[in-house]
């Protein structure tokens, strides 16, 4: 049996539950997933500004919290914290280990970075345009690598494997293939291992996070959700569970909800490794906070690899202002009209502006849903995307000017301008990838 846990499910995930797993989990592997769709593009921008950066910003804190326990307990760490600069991340972990007095081996996986292969003539199939026609500056491009990139790194028997862009479930599937010696074309068993990775990769989303909806769905001790781990058998069936004494719950329903999370056709979940079939899965509770998953199938992997091209996407401007008390919604509506009027007629702004009235209608505004209650606490939120920093600043200034020039009793201004990236998917031949593993020692 292999025991494999999840140490992070996104770049901002909690650290203390990973420490708990590292200390008490008796794990063979602990995988940290820290890269979202747009993370790579931000990483490339950071690397352009400083060639020594572009990897996961919290790498010292996140790995520093677990490294000593993982080394002591024989737990191999596998992570995509390399983001846009795996080699620099490897060097950072070497330094971290030296500071901690640990002698370790780190295997760095490279080959996902396709930035140099993107030309003005590269076609972007999602929008049917070339990069030139798209007109935005390319930040970087990376292919989703699979287990064939991670397995040679695991063959070096390292303490830590660091990658850039890999498919999330592959971070979990590769250790299982490595330890069990599964054939990389045994599609059904790769499907089962992929389901394990898919269930673990968002950490608490399988242990009671993104789930509670009282009174229908109640989660015990929800402030202290444990991160999940799996006990995987050589045939790929697995029990999803969490440490005793942690909060949350692993139930049939938490596992079912997560099985189809971000899945389109349940019978064809595409990864670089396999076309997994979740539609035939059996999910059954096997004790407290223990859920067994079996019956997942698999077919041949896709011929090409998906890659993401990131572009410099200008700025997202957001500004907020509040009205409370009698007539709050009417005063907020009046303020909204003022901001729109001035952006168009004084500032000649052509960018689309959205104004939400939080407390009346915001997240579901475009679905036509608003609160009809006598709302007495309303927050105006104006948002705009623009390539022009000055236009972004103008929106903030117009909302801020509501202090003096807006309806009565307004206050609580906040404004932010966020540099934005956008992404486009492309598909590349597997032969276009040159894999490389670099071993470093502390």
């Amino acid at each position: 049996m292999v025991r494999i846990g999840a140490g992070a499910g996104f770049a901002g995930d909690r650290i203390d539950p990973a420490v708990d797993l590292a200390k008490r989990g008796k794990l063979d592997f602990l995988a940290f997933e820290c890269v979202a769709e747009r993370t790579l593009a931000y990483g490339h921008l950071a690397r352009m500004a400083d060639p020594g950066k572009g990897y996961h910003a919290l790498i010292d804190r996140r790995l520093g919290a677990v490294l000593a326990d993982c080394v002591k307990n024989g737990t191999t760490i596998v992570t995509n914290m390399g983001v846009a600069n795996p080699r620099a991340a490897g060097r950072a972990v070497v330094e971290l280990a030296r500071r901690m007095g640990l002698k370790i081996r780190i295997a760095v996986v490279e080959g996902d970075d396709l930035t140099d292969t993107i030309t003005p003539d590269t076609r972007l199939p999602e929008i049917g345009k070339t990069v030139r026609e798209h007109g935005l500056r390319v930040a970087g491009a990376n292919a989703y690598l699979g287990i064939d990139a991670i397995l040679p790194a695991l063959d070096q028997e390292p303490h830590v494997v660091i990658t850039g862009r890999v498919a999330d479930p592959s971070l979990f599937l590769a250790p299982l293939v490595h330890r069990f010696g599964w054939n990389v074309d045994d599609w059904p068993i790769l499907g089962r291992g992929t389901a394990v990775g898919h269930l673990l990769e968002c950490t608490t989303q399988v242990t009671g996070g993104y789930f509670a909806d009282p009174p229908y769905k109640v989660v015990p001790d929800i402030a202290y959700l444990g991160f999940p781990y799996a006990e995987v058998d050589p045939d790929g069936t697995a029990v999803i569970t969490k440490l005793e004494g942690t909060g949350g719950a692993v139930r049939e329903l938490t596992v079912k909800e997560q099985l189809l999370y971000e899945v389109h056709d349940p019978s064809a979940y595409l990864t670089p490794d396999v076309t997994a079939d979740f539609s035939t899965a059996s999910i059954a509770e096997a004790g407290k906070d223990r859920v067994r998953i079996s019956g997942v199938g698999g077919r041949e992997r896709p011929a090409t690899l998906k890659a993401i091209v990131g572009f410099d996407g200008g700025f997202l401007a957001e500004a907020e202002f509040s009205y409370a008390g009698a007539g709050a919604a009417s005063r907020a509506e009046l303020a909204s009209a003022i901001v729109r009027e001035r952006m168009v007629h004084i500032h000649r702004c052509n960018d689309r502006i959205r104004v939400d009235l939080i407390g009346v209608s915001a997240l579901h505004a475009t679905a036509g849903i608003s609160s009809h209650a006598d709302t007495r606490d309303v927050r105006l939120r104006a948002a705009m995307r623009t390539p022009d920093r000055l236009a972004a600043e103008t929106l903030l200034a117009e909302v801020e000017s509501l202090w003096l020039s807006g309806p009565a009793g307004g206050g609580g201004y906040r404004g932010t301008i966020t540099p934005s990236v956008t992404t486009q998917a492309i598909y590349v031949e597997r032969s276009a990838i040159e894999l490389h593993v670099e071993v470093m020692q502390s």
Partner: protein
Amino acid sequence: MSRRTVPLREVASARTGDKGDIACISVWVYDPRDYADVKASLTAERVAAAYPDLWRGKVTRYEVPGLHGLNFVLRDALEGGVNASLNLDLHGKSFSFLLLALEVEVERP
């Protein structure tokens, strides 16, 4: 036994995920005996027609009878996706509750 109309939230849970401008919402009945009724009520056409200004594209429904689940894939549903949307909820995480607000007809004693 009689037929009763209830909000989906009373008989099922739902979870939203996103990929680009596509939202996917899975629906799971609490009691397997409600699966056939929920399946009959909650067709792809009905979901597509529910919030046409927000969910603007084609809706595909996948059935997972072994787990008593339905999976809805909604194209052109995220106001351009995280790249373009001005919605506070860029990912449409809250959209499961739009689906849970729809009424379904189920059998009740």
